[in-house]
Structure formats: C-alpha cells, structure tokens
C-alpha cells in the first residue's frame, strides 16, 4: 500500500471528510454564483439574436447545460456507487445518495426549459423529440433510485441496493438513448428536431459552456452540503 492510497482511504472517513467538504462547498458555491452571472449575461445580452428562432432560443443557455449535467451526474453517481460496492466505504455510498436529488432537479429543469422552448417555437408544450424523451426516462431512473433508497429501512441494504440499481441504470442509459433516437426517426421522420440548437456562433457556445461549468460548481456545492447532512445523520 503506497502512501498515496493510504491517504485516499484517510479522506474516506466521514469524520475527516466533513470539514473538507465544507470548505470545498463554500468555494464551489461562490464559483457557481460568479459563473452563473457571467453565463446568463452572455446568454441574454451578448449572444446575437438567432435568425430562425428570434429571442426565444436563449433558453438553451439553461436547457442544454442542465441536460449535459443531468447525464454527467448520473455517470458520476454510478461511479461512486461502484466504488462503494467494491471497497465497502460508506462515504462513497453517501456521495451517490447525495448526488441523486441534484441530478433529478437538473433533469427536471432540462425538461421544463425544453418545454418552454417548444411552446413559442413549435406551438406545443411538449414534443416527443429524442432528447426530451431521453431526459424524461433519465428522470424516472433518478426517481427510481431515490424511491428505492427511501423504501428500505436498513441503511446498509439501502445503500447497496441503490448502488446496484445505479450501475444497472448507467449501463442501460446508452442503450435507452440510442433506441429513443431511432424511435424518434421512425415516427417523426428525419425532420428537424425540436431541440436542435441553432448553428453555433462562438459566443453562444461560450455562454453554454460557462453555464455548464456554473451548474457543475453548483452541483458540487449542493452535493457536498448534502453529504455533510448525511454524515451527521449517520453518526
């Protein structure tokens, strides 16, 4: 066992991690606020008006980063779950449990903003396009994870059952995504996707990346605060 690996397991103790989490959470929260302000400024004031969709397209500065993060968080959650099952560390399981509500929230935001985008652009509040449908199924996966953990009284069984579900889910997510893509082409033809972003001006891409970063910092901050609560609960 090298000194490096010993150090990791030291941080894996909830007591040691508690203060570290607090510090990181504060910094990430501040970073999130700054990045969010910058991103929204770019999105709403700096980026040019789109030729086809007018001002309504600006909602992608929230919709697309939220969608990216919702998928990213699911993968991270599954990684923590796998670590928890492999090394039997409680903190890993707590991280997975703490990530789920944030992931679900971002998925919901992606769905809601997607709906707002659809209304002025295509006239419907909901369109069964590939991305929105995949996001909907992802929301069900998050809610299923949370529901399973809530339904089990024994903490250890709850953590391990949720972890297995997350791993099975993450393996299925690409399969679900591609099958939904195919389903969409079958039933709506290869026509324009509702949520296909307009061709990117550089400022638009920058704006979306900054917002994605902002969401990422926000997720880290909120997850760590939640982990601190879980540590306190489980002492």
């Amino acid at each position: 066992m090298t000194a490096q690996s010993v150090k990791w397991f030291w941080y894996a103790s909830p007591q040691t991690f508690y203060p570290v989490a607090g510090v990181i959470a504060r910094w990430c929260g501040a970073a999130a606020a700054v990045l969010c302000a910058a991103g929204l400024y770019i999105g709403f004031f700096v980026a040019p008006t789109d030729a086809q969709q007018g001002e309504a397209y600006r909602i992608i500065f929230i919709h697309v980063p939220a969608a990216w993060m919702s998928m990213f968080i699911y993968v991270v959650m599954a990684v923590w779950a796998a670590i928890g099952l492999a090394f039997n560390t409680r903190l890993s399981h707590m991280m997975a449990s703490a990530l789920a509500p944030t992931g679900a929230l971002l998925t919901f935001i992606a769905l809601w903003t997607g709906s707002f985008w659809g209304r002025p652009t295509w006239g419907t509040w909901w369109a069964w396009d590939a991305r929105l449908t995949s996001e909907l199924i992802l929301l069900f996966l998050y809610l299923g994870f949370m529901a399973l953990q809530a339904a089990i009284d024994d903490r250890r069984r709850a953590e391990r059952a949720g972890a297995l579900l997350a791993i099975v889910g993450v393996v299925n997510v690409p399969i679900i995504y591609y099958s939904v893509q195919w389903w969409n082409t079958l039933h709506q033809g290869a026509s324009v996707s509702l949520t296909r972003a307009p061709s990117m001006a550089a400022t638009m891409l920058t704006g979306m990346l900054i917002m994605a970063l902002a969401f990422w910092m926000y997720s880290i901050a909120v997850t760590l605060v939640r982990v601190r609560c879980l540590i306190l609960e489980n002492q």
Partner: protein
Amino acid sequence: MLEAARCIVVRDLLVAWRRRSDVATALLFFVIVTSLFPLGIGAEPDLLRSIAPGVIWVAALLSCLLSLGRLFAADHADGTLEQLLLGSAPLGVIAAAKALAHWLVAGLPLVLIAPLIALQYDLPAPLYPVLALSLLLGTPVLSLIGAIGAALTLGLRGGGVLLSLLVLPLFVPVLIMGAGSVDMAAAGLAPDGQLLLLGALLIVAAAFAPWAIAAALRISAE
C-alpha cells in the same frame, strides 16, 4: 451445476402448475388490457391496425411486470430463498434458472396468445410472424431485467409499484425495438435490424443479468 438449475426450473414449473389459477390470471390481464384500448380510443379499423403492435407490446410489458412481483416473494416468505442462496451451483446460474422458469410461465404464453389479439386488431397476416418473433426475443429480456428489480425490491412495502418504477425505464429499449420491428414490417420495410438488435439485447441480458440478479439477492437477503 446444471442439475441444480434444472431442478429449480422443474420446481418452479411444478409450483406454477399447482397454482394454475394465479398464472392464468396474469395471462387474462394481458387479454383484458388489450381489450381496453379500443374501448378507450374507438374501434376505427385503420387506427387499431396502426396501434396494434404498440398496444400488444405495452400489455405484454405490464403483464410481465405483474408476475415479476411474485418471482422471489414466495421463496422469500417460506424460507426457500435462503436454501437457493446456499445451493451447490453458483448463484448466477440459479438466478438464470429462476428467470427462465418465469419466462416459461409468464412470457412464452404471451407469445402464443398475441396472434389472437392481433386478430382482434385486424393486423395483416404477414405481420404475425414478426410480432411473434419480436415477443419471443423480447419477453426473455423482460424476465431477466425484471428479475433484477424483483430481487432488489424483495420484501419491501409498496414493492409492486416500486418494482414498476425501477424496471419500466429499463424496459424501454425492448419496447421500442419490439413494437418498432412490427411497425417497420407494416410500413413494408425489412424488420431485420430491429429483430437483430432484440437478439443482441437478449444475448447481453442473458450474459450479464444473472450476475446482477445474484448480487441483488445477496444484498436483499442480508
């Protein structure tokens, strides 16, 4: 190893035979659900023909889900699950045997009944083999993936509904490919792609699901 697996399949089939009415009820559910759609949507022949594959597939999904709740619950209640966990064969093999028994009792009959439902919906005759084949390839996948959910939700309150929430998102690819294959055939295109994908899903599920089921059983039985 195969002895133990065969023994479990035979045991489950024997128990299902002695509780024939339970099995028949689940199949009756399939028939009833498919009868509800025309009542709710209207019996316009063209409409029914176009929704038939989807309706039959969704009903198959729900019917499988209904019987999945019982997969491990009875064994858990009378203590035989612990004996399965202590069996002489690897738990993955035992899990695969349970899933196979479930499919034989809950999935295969659907494949046989589906043409009758297709008749009710006036599906054109050339589509029947595609429908049957898609169900034949897809229902085992439902049994395998559903068994993971059944093992995870073993003994929990609100188990049946929770099982649905966990497992239905995972069923989506099978539903899309299964119903899609019949839709492709209905449009005059070859359904080969979708059927092959279903076959691939079956192979992957058969290879990996048993170990997930075994892990879930160990987690739940502690």
